[in-house]
């Protein structure tokens, strides 16, 4: 690329300089051209200010310590196990207890039976779930940030 003092850097050449891939000709031009140099310095100044502010902002955010997370997870396991056992007990014993102790249901004429209630309830639930699925399945490029371009793991980096 041939550049001289009379023709300023193109936006593309300037971007290459900013991302560290500027050509020798671009750098030679920058050394002579205060206007192009000012554009580079303006960008670098703005980014530097952003970096300072974003760093301070991030450091000021309240965060849980890793120790807290680990402790919470360790504590959570027995608690979760107890809840799971209680839930299992309720599922097994609950229906039997209901049949023994509950008063016999009396249906007035025209009132839906329990089976009919269940079917309509299931239909309502299914409709609700369908609507929720539709709501969360809205395609949005914002969320497709790396889809299709990166596998879960790749050479040189393995997570758990």
């Amino acid at each position, binding site marked *: 690329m041939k550049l001289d003092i009379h023709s300023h850097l193109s936006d593309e050449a300037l971007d290459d300089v900013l991302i560290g891939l500027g050509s020798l000709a671009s750098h030679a031009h920058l050394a002579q051209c205060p206007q192009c140099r000012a*554009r580079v310095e303006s960008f670098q100044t703005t980014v530097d200010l952003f970096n300072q502010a*974003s760093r301070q902002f991030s450091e000021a955010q309240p965060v849980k310590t890793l120790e807290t997370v680990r402790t919470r997870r360790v504590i959570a396991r027995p608690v979760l196990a107890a809840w799971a056992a209680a839930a299992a007990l309720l599922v097994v014993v609950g229906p039997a207890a209901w049949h023994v102790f509950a008063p016999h249901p009396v249906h007035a004429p025209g009132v839906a039976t329990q089976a009919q209630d269940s079917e309509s309830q299931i239909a309502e639930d299914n409709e609700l779930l369908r609507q929720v699925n539709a709501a969360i399945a809205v395609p949005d490029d914002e969320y497709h940030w790396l*889809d299709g371009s990166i596998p879960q793991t790749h050479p040189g980096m*393995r997570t758990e």
Partner: protein
Amino acid sequence: MATLPINTAQMAFAEDGRVESPSRKAVISELDDIDELVRLHQARIRRLATFSTGDPDLADSITQDTLLRAYRGRENFRGDCSVSTWITGIAINVTRDHLRSPRFKFWKQVQTTGIDAHEMASFLPARGSTPEQSLLAQEKVRQLWKVLETLSVKQRTIFIMKFSEDMAIEDIAKALDMQTTTVRTHLHRALKAVRSQLGAAI
């Protein structure tokens, strides 16, 4: 970021007989100390996650998950890149997992959590500048963040990795498992957006 230097003349044998370089052993000990891991990388990863996702609450979870995964998976670190690049790669994976989850998408639609540009800019250190200079500097920060917010998460992430994390194109490409040309393309698009929205001064 440079990859770890491997000097074969200084190779040592690990306990299980594998050949291990001194530099890798040093890095492994760095990863073994979770407090050191947090001290060196927490703020950096939190900033990357915060400004990639635009969601400080989510960034907190991502940072925690990333550091825990790095600590628990430290034996998987092979030393073929710097620890920073390795952990950044984990953060990218964790972030992607969070962004893909239906739960995140659902809550993102019903609530608005985000970064307050004015609040963020107010964290800019004054460092002896006049009130006018401080206001001008804060305005620049606000304007840049407003532009970055309009980018896709992918472009914003790459922009931050390059200009905030000061990562080399090759390291960004490695962390994202992309071609370097793809990374360059995203950077050019991001810079074009910045230029078009902030004016010809940049």
